[in-house]
C-alpha cells in the first residue's frame, strides 16, 4: 500500500496564472476505498481550483464527519481547513465566514452529514445565504459506518445486505431551491466534464452555491438494485445542459447556435455559457427548474446540470451590511473608538 505520492508529474504540465502546478492543489494519498466516487470529486476540485488559478491560501475547506468529510485531506493541502463535528460544518462555516470574509469557503459534506444529523444546520446556512460552496458527496448511504441507508437513499433502492429502503428520499436539490439558494446544481462524480466547470462557477458565485454530486460508494452501495451505483447512474443520467465556465477577461471561444445557448455573467465578470438541451430551459427561472426536476423524477431520470442561478443574489454580508474589512482584522481602536466617538453617537439619539 502506498502512503506517499510520487513527487514527479507530467513533464508537460504547465503552471497556471498564479504560478502553481496542478500538483500544488493536490492533497495526501487517499485512504478511501479504491474506486470511491468521492476521490473523483476531490480530483474535480483540484482541477477546478488549478484551472481558475485560485491561490490555495485564499481558500478554506470545512467538513463534518463521514468518508466524504475526510476528503479535504486529499485535495488542497496548501489551503486552510477545519474538520468539524458530524453535521455541524455549516455553523463552523458561518462563524468562519463572519470572522474573515476574505477567504473563499468550500464546505464538503455527505448525504448523512447533511440530510440526517446536519439537516437543521444545512437549511439555515441556505436560508442565510452564507458565502460558500457547499458540496454534498451523495452516495445514498453512511459509507463510513458501513453503508446504512441514508435519507437520500431512493425509495425501493436495495442495500448491499439485500433490504429494500421503505422511505422516500429527501431531494437536497429540491430543498435548496425551496430555500431560495442562489446557485443550485447536480452532477455525477464520473462526469468531470460537467462537474469541473460547475465547481468553477460555484466558486465565483457570491452567496450560497449548492452542488449535489452523486458519488457511488463502491464498497457498500454499488450493488445490483442500488440506485446510486455506477451502472444505475450511468443508465439513468440526463443532463439539462452542457456547461462551460469562462473566467473574467477570457473570451468565449465556442460558438453556440442561436437559441440553444445562454450566457450568464457572474458578479466578478466571469461568464457561464450553457448550451441547452431544451430550448425552453432558462436556469434563471426557478419555477421551470422545479418543474423539470419533478418531471425527471417521475420519469425515473437523474437530472444533472446547473438548475438555477440567481446572478443578483444578496449575500450574507450584504444582508448584514458588515464592514468590508474582515472582522478578525479589526483592531482594538476600530472596535473601541473611544469615549469621544461614543459621545458623538449618543448625540445622534438626542
Amino acid at each position, binding site marked *: 500500500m502506498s502512503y506517499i505520492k510520487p513527487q*514527479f508529474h507530467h*513533464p508537460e504540465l504547465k503552471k497556471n496564472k498564479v504560478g502553481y502546478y496542478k500538483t500544488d492543489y493536490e492533497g495526501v494519498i487517499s485512504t478511501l*476505498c479504491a*474506486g470511491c466516487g468521492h*476521490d473523483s470529486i476531490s480530483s474535480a476540485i483540484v482541477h477546478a481550483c488549478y484551472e481558475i488559478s485560485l491561490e490555495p491560501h485564499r481558500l478554506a475547506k470545512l467538513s463534518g464527519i463521514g468518508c466524504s468529510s475526510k476528503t479535504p485531506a486529499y485535495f488542497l493541502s496548501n489551503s486552510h481547513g477545519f474538520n468539524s463535528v458530524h453535521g455541524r460544518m455549516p455553523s463552523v462555516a458561518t462563524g468562519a465566514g463572519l470572522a474573515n470574509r476574505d477567504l473563499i469557503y468550500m464546505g464538503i459534506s455527505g448525504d448523512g452529514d447533511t440530510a440526517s444529523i446536519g439537516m437543521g444546520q444545512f437549511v439555515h446556512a441556505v436560508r442565510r445565504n452564507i458565502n460558500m460552496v457547499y458540496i454534498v458527496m451523495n452516495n445514498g448511504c453512511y459509507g463510513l459506518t458501513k453503508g446504512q441507508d441514508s435519507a437520500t437513499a431512493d425509495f425501493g433502492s436495495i442495500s448491499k445486505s439485500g433490504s429494500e429502503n421503505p422511505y422516500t428520499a429527501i431531494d437536497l436539490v429540491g430543498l435548496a431551491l425551496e430555500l431560495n439558494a442562489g446557485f443550485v446544481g447536480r452532477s455525477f462524480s464520473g462526469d468531470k466534464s460537467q462537474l469541473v466547470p460547475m465547481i468553477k462557477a460555484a466558486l465565483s458565485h457570491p452567496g450560497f452555491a449548492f452542488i449535489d454530486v452523486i458519488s457511488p460508494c463502491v464498497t457498500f452501495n454499488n450493488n445490483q438494485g442500488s440506485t446510486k451505483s455506477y451502472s444505475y447512474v450511468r443508465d439513468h443520467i440526463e443532463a439539462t445542459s452542457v456547461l462551460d465556465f469562462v473566467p473574467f477577461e477570457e473570451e468565449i471561444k465556442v460558438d453556440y447556435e442561436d437559441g440553444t445557448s445562454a450566457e450568464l455573467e457572474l458578479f466578478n465578470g466571469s461568464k457561464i455559457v450553457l448550451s441547452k438541451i431544451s430550448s425552453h430551459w432558462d436556469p434563471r427561472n426557478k419555477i421551470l427548474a422545479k418543474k423539470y426536476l419533478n418531471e425527471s423524477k417521475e420519469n425515473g431520470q437523474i437530472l444533472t446540470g446547473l438548475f438555477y442561478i440567481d446572478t443578483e443574489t444578496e449575500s450574507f454580508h450584504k444582508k448584514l451590511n458588515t464592514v468590508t474589512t474582515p472582522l478578525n482584522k479589526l483592531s482594538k481602536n476600530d472596535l473601541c473608538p473611544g469615549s469621544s466617538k461614543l459621545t458623538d453617537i449618543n448625540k445622534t439619539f438626542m
Partner: protein
Amino acid sequence: MKPTDINDPEYFHKVVDCQYACPAHTPVPEYIRLIAQGKYTEAYMINWESNVFPGVLGRTCDRPCEPACRRVRVEEEPVAICRLKRVAADNKSNVKPFMPQGPFPSNSKKIALIGGGPASLTVARDLAPLGYEIHLYDEWESGGGMMRTQIPSFRLPLEVLNEEVNYILDMGIHTHFNHYVDSMAQILSKDYDAIFVGTGAPRGRQLDLPGYKEAQQHVQIGIEFLANVAFEHTEEIGKKVIVLGGGNTAMDCCRTSKRLGADHVYVVVRSPKADMKASPWEIDDAEREGINILNNLPPKAYVMENGKFIGMHFEHVQAVYDDNGKRKLIPTGEEDLFIEATDVILAIGQDNAFPWIERDLGLEFGKWNLPVLDRNTFQSTLPKVFFGGDAAFGPENVITAVAHGHQAAISIDLFCKGESLAKRPAPMTNLISQKMGIHEWTYDNHIADDLRYLVPHEDNEKALKDRKVEVELGFGKETGFKEAMRCLNCDVQTVFATNLCIECDACVDVCPTDCITFTENGEELELRERLNAPALNKSQDLYVSDILPTARVMVKDEDVCLHCGLCAERCPTAAWDMKKYLYNVTKSYEQDGAGVTI
C-alpha cells in the same frame, strides 16, 4: 486505434526502455532489483547470461541504455545502470558453479574463431556448452581483443578482464595465441565446420599533412600507442603531447599520455565541443585530470625548426549548419594557432582491414571494404563464414560485439545442424502478477526522488602516478542500494483487463503523471492530442483497450508512466494489475525448438 496486442513480445519489451535499448537486451530492472536486495551473485548471473562481461561492461560500457532510461523523461538523470552492473560484479561470490560446467559431450563439430575480442568470446561461450570444439586465434599473447589492447588499465583493471575472459576459455576452448591468421584460404582448407571472423577494426588512420615526412617519428597512431602501452612496449612519452581527434580513443590517449609523464596534454578537435564523439563522461574524466580540450581547430601542418619537431599549426574555424543540420566548418580568418609539442597522437578513426582474406574465395566485400553480410544472421556470401563485432559493420563497442556474437552463435549452430538460418528462436517471455495482498506488491513501488549518485574517483595525484591505478572506485554497497532504488521498475507492466473495469476514474485521478484517459476512440495522431496529458513523444506507444460499456476506450500513454502501481492500488476491481515482464533473448545453448521466422 485497434486494441493493443500485449501478446506481441515486443510490446512490453519496448516499455522496458533500457533493456530495449541494450544491444544484448540485458534485463536491466531485474538485475537492479536483485542488487537492491543484496543478491549480487544473482544480479551478476543475469548480466553474464546476456552480456558475458558484466565486470568489464560495468566499467566501460558505452551505455546506450542510459539515455533511454525513463528517468530522463520524468526527472533528468538516468539511473546509473552501468555502474550498478559493477556493484554486482564487485560484490558477487563465486559464480562459477552457476555457469555451464564442462567438459561438454562433443557434437563432433569444429569451429574456428579468428580474433579473440568480445564477439569471438561470446560465440565461444554460447557454442561450447553445445559440444562444439572451438579454436580461437588471436595475434596477441592473450584473449580479450581491444578490451585488453585498447581500454586502459586505469579504466579496466587487468584482473577484472582476465577473470571474465577466463570464465570462457576455461570451458575448454582451444586457444591459438600469438597467432596472426594471414590466410583465410588456409583456414578454409582445415576441417572447420564453420568460421567466425571477429577481428575487429584494427587499422588506425594516418594524417598526412605538410611536414609529416620530417615529423613522422614523433607521430603515433592512437590505437597502436595504446596497445604498446598495454603490453608495456611503450613506457614513456615526451613532455608536450598533442592528441588529434574528439572520440573516446582520443580521451584514452590523452589520459594515458599524462600517466606516462607528459606535463602538457592538448586534445585538439576540428569540430565544436557539442559535436565531439567521445562520451560526455569520458570528456569529464579527461578534463578532471587537467587535460585541455581545444575545439574548432583543424590541423594544418607539422612544424619543424632546425631539423627538430616543435609542434603543429591549426586553423581557426567556425561551425555553420544548413537547414538540414549539415555542418560546414568555415575558416574564421584568424591567425593560425601554433601549439608546441614533443609528440603527436592520431586518434582520428579506425578502418576495417582484411588483408588476410583472399579476394577469390567467394567472400564478397562491399562499401568501405566491409564484408557483405546478412544483417540478422551475420552470414557472409561464403555460407560457412560468419562475421561479428567491429569486423561486421565497422567500429562500435563491446556490448554490440557481444550482441552480434549471440546471434552469430545461433546462426552457426543452425548452420551446423543443417537448419534454416531464418528460423530464429523466439525470445523467452513471461508475464507474472506482482500482487501479494490487496495493495501489496512483490516489488518496491515507492518512487525515490533521489538525484543520481556520483561514483567516487581516486585522487588525481595518486591516479596520475600509475597508469594501473583504477580511477573510478565504484559505488559502495550503500550508495549502490540507493542508486538501485532510483530504478522505476519499468519491467513491471500495467496490464489492463477491459472486462473488469467499471469506469470509476480512480486510476485516472490517482495517476501522478496523467498517463490514463478514458475517451472516445480515434486515429492515433488525433487521439494523442486529446488525452488528459497530450502524448507528444511518438516514440512511445499508446496502450489502447477494447471498447468499454460507455462506448469509450482506455488509453494509456506509456511515455512517462512511473510504474508506481497506484492505478492498480486504487482500482476497485483489479482491472489494472502490475505484472512483471521478463524478456530474454534466447541464446544458442538455451533453444527449445520454438522459433520465429524472419
